[in-house]
């Protein structure tokens, strides 16, 4: 059982991360935002039967289910090429530096596209949101060992693209 206050706290803590999680899977930001809202709406509707202690993993489980439904409807491969960007101003870069960054970004997108979903979500949760392995394991209801395994597999994909962190 969760009330409106619990729900607000849950939203504040996990909404941002949840819509990113869905985005990591499908590489569509509008669809990811819609689905994340649906996840929270489902939680709200089922709030009477929800145990507060494992609600975190439940959010991610519902989201994963929605992603499965999403792929059932449209069978497109996740493509990150339009999403990989540079933070900050590009003006300060020399032409050479600019070209090198473009090359890096392209390889990064390719690496992300070639990763299996499970690897990619774990890798991005860690890299983009700086979540610890333990935190990722708790959210995805995995063991820390499994998270480590996926991370090292993802790093190997980067390595194949001659990318280093």
């Amino acid at each position, binding site marked *: 059982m969760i009330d409106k206050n619990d729900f607000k706290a849950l939203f504040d803590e996990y909404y941002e991360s949840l819509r990113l999680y869905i985005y990591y899977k499908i590489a569509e930001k509008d669809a990811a935002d819609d689905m994340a*809202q649906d996840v929270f*709406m*489902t939680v709200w509707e089922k709030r009477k039967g929800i145990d507060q202690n494992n609600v975190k993993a439940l959010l991610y489980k519902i989201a994963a289910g*929605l992603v499965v439904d999403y792929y059932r409807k449209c069978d497109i491969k996740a493509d990150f090429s339009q999403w*990989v960007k*540079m933070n900050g101003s590009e003006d300060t870069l020399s032409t050479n530096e600019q070209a090198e960054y473009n090359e890096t970004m392209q390889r*990064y*997108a390719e690496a992300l596209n070639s990763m299996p979903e499970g690897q990619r979500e774990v890798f991005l949760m860690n890299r983009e949101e700086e979540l610890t392995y333990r935190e990722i394991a708790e959210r995805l209801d995995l063991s820390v060992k499994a998270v480590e395994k996926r991370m090292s597999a993802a790093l190997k994909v980067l390595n194949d693209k001659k990318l280093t962190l």
Partner: protein
Amino acid sequence: MKLDDKITAKPHWDKSAEDVWNERFAALTEDDGNEVQTDSAEVRTISILGWTKRILSAAAVILVIFSATAYLYTKNIQAPTGQVLSAILPDGSEVRMSSTSEISYRPLLWMFAHDVKLSGEAYFSGHHVKGFSVKTNNGNIDVLGTSFNARTFDNRLEVACIDGRVKVITHQSSVVLTAGMQTATQDGQLKTGHFTDAESITGWTHGVFSFYDRSLADVIKDVERNYGVKIETSANIDTMRYTGRFTRDKSVENVLTIIGQPYGITFKITK
């Protein structure tokens, strides 16, 4: 190549989390939460479940109504005063009811329970379905064979088996009768014996009243029932026994003369 911190795959959201909250969730209240519909697959599953539930409950209601109707709908057949009425039961067997006797059964439940309720006197014959049973206030008769006569007057049950086998069950005891046997409740027990004259038992079905060593009071009651009259007598007839026969086509005055003459008593018809 160095994948440095400047490079990110994070999208730029159209709406901040705060905007999303305000637009979609801020207005939710504790009591209307259940009615809010979204197009998520999770919610659709719930509503499909809801439909199944609704259909199931509708089916349950119909079933209850049907069972209640089937249970409450009974068919009653009563023989008119002074007449023998013959009826065919759903299993094709025949029942003959003596004057004012009544049977009832539930036609809609017949395929589940072949129970016939009897008050009065009736003669059952023909081929009965398995499980055919006659219920009376004083005991039940499970029909194992074919023809038998049952009487339930004066809180007594008398059953005579003409053909085949029947089982008579009262609260205290039960007995199986074969052809030529009869039983009657007496002080809660079943008194069983053989009869010699089948005509004295089933004669009424074709208008012949035949009595063999019967209490005179019982005979007078039979006459009252079959002619639809009330009879009074000045004499004390409690200890008298009667043996004799007459046919239904005689007038009631005539019959009473036949019965009373040997004892030297007269009867008066009061109604």
